[in-house]
């Protein structure tokens, strides 16, 4: 792979009379035909782009000369919408940014609002938030572990991913009421305490999750064909990745030992539990898969640990009836399943924020694509897209 840092030039406009192509085949034998680059549109409707990412790829045969991601097909204008909603209403909206781990999206926003109001949620609420954040991380990653197989051609693990994620989603539903969009965080705490029997059920499910990690390790990570497809494909050098703003597991797979749960400003109950931050030195697609696999296991262990330490007490701090956030600005960032997620909240003292800037992980993660995709083959494009693991809602917001 040619690893130069020069920016990829924009693709030239294609000005070809499409009718003219039909006669190319009639060209006389023996005449040297011009070979040209082929411009291939991967997406916006393409099974490998997780929705509506469009990649304009210039191909020479099957080799990618340049790739140009086009985003915005799913832009829903959340930053603007937040300006005309109140704080409780915004939580239901930002659920939908990264729809696979919606609970984790709520946490930084609520956290920022709480900080502006100088409220702190009681410890039990913090623990339950942490547990649910880790559960949504597991739900996201278990799906990834299967779906990565689908993208490299193994159909079966994808269904297992859905099967095993179902247990975790059932847990989230039993606790919050929503499978995908919990909307469970409130300023000052959480909506409701856990239902009876939930803790035991969670312990059982964590065992299932750990078992399923073993299965994925055997059927994909240890599979020779899978390794041939992903090893040394799409290598992100650690420093370059950090410069592009790549974060989360993608960066840790490049050997950068950086996890906001441990290294950022302390939030939730993370400072009180032990966990290992997994890294891999290679930075290729396989190591991204491997790191997520380990993190799924680690998250399951973290949930078990959190359940053991779960304190009793209230779940809601004293909060005024009508929530008005005092004037101020704050930047909060957390380690979400897809990477670093942050909100910059500007409040002018109203019931809703004045301006919110959303820093979503996938947007920065795909920004490295033009650099990463140069010189690879078309099948590798799909492997790299799958291993970067982005959610379109998280890119376009």
């Amino acid at each position, binding site marked *: 792979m040619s690893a130069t840092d020069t920016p990829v030039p924009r693709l030239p406009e294609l000005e070809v009379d499409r009718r003219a192509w039909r006669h190319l085949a009639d060209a006389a034998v023996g005449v040297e035909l011009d070979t040209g680059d082929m411009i*291939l549109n991967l997406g916006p409707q393409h099974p490998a782009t997780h929705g509506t990412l469009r990649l304009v790829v210039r191909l020479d045969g099957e080799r990618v000369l340049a790739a140009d991601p086009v985003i915005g097909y799913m832009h829903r204008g959340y930053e603007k919408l937040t300006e005309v909603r109140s704080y409780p209403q915004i939580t239901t909206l930002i659920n939908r940014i990264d729809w696979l781990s919606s609970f984790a999206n709520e946490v930084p926003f609520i956290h920022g609002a709480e900080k502006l109001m100088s409220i702190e949620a009681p410890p039990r609420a913090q623990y339950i938030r942490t547990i649910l954040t880790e559960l949504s991380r597991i739900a996201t990653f278990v799906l990834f572990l299967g779906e990565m197989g689908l993208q490299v*051609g193994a159909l079966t693990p994808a269904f*297992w991913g859905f099967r095993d994620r179902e247990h975790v989603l059932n847990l989230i539903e039993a606790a919050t009421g929503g499978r995908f969009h919990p909307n469970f965080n409130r300023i000052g705490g959480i909506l409701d305490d856990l239902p009876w029997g939930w803790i035991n059920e969670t312990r059982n499910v964590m065992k299932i999750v750990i078992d399923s990690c073993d299965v994925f390790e055997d059927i994909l990570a240890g*599979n020779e*064909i*899978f390794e041939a*497809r992903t090893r040394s494909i799409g290598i992100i050098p650690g420093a370059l990745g950090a410069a592009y703003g790549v974060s989360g597991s993608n960066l840790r797979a490049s050997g950068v030992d950086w996890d906001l749960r441990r290294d950022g400003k302390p939030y939730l109950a993370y400072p009180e539990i032990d966990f290992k931050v997994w890294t891999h030195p290679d930075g290729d697609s396989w190591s991204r898969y491997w790191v997520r696999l380990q993190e799924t296991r680690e998250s399951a262990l973290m949930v078990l640990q959190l359940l053991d330490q779960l304190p009793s007490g209230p779940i809601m701090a004293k909060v005024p009836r009508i929530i008005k956030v005092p004037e101020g600005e704050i930047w909060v960032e957390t380690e979400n399943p897809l990477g670093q997620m942050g909100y910059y909240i500007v409040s002018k003292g109203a019931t809703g924020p004045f301006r919110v800037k959303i820093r979503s992980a996938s947007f920065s993660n795909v920004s490295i694509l033009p650099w990463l995709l140069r010189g690879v083959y078309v*099948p590798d494009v799909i492997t790299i897209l*799958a291993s970067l693991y982005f959610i379109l809602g998280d890119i376009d917001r």
Partner: protein
Amino acid sequence: MSHVLAVDAGWGVTLGIKTVVVLGLIPAGALILGYTFLLKMMSHMQSRLGPMEAGPHGVLQLVADGVKFLQKEDIMPAESDRHVFAIAPAVIVMSTFLIFIVIPAGPKLVVKNLDVGVFYALAVSSLSVIGVLMAGWSSANKFALLGALRAAAQLIAYELPLLLAVVGVVAQAGTMNLQGIVGAQANGSIFGWSGIGNPFILTQFVGFGLFLVASQAELTQTPFDMPVAESELVAGYMVEYTGFRFLFFFIGEFGTAFAFAALAATLFLGGWAIPGVTNTGLMEVLGPLVLFAKLMIVAFLMFWVRFTYPRLREDQLQALAWKVLIPIGLANILVTGIFKVAF
């Protein structure tokens, strides 16, 4: 065939019956394989049930799908080369049809007992490349074109290991006639013990493995399904096809799988014969059943692999064919030849 019916029919009637039987075999085989493996085995491997509503356990699901395909509008892309686009699916089914002609299912139960049966079967099976190229080129779609070129490169690369795998069998049997190969296995013996004859899978296990791998590539099944790669090229060369033309592709795909499984069962597992049973009349009835049972075992292996593995990349596939499979195939022929001469 005419002997079975005990009617001394004219050649025209015989030909008609044979054509109808073989034409019926292709969709029937496709239905059986499609239902057993694609719908049910794959579903259970993926912890689900698969279709359950159409008929008991969904047996009629593929029939229902077929009817649905027939109702669909026949769409041709505006830029497509219409005639080529229309013929391509038929070319693919034609190649399947031609393989069935030489596969014996009983002592007399064969459409045409060619002396060069093996050679002929492998030759016509590669005709499907032409259909694939026609489909890919005429669709006027870049994905289809990529898929077709991949298919062409892949099918050509894997013809060779397929052929080399069979050469061992041919050398051991001493004939290219498929009936002769079945006979050689039924009448053979393992160190003087002839209880199960001598199915060539015992001596030609390398060849059998090669044959399975290469036929997997011929059938464009995972791990070699780059031409139709769902997640890359959407559906490769058949991306623009709808309705009954797509149905043709489907029937062609599974019909060819059926034919290849039958071919592998004939070449390596002893075909229709039961060693020791020499009653011709009985074998005319039992033979197809025996062949079908063996064929399902081979098909199970092929689909098991298909539903378990990820797919390779195009260049890795070529490397595997030229650098691994072909040398193994050549070595296998060499060893077979030495043994043949020595014993």
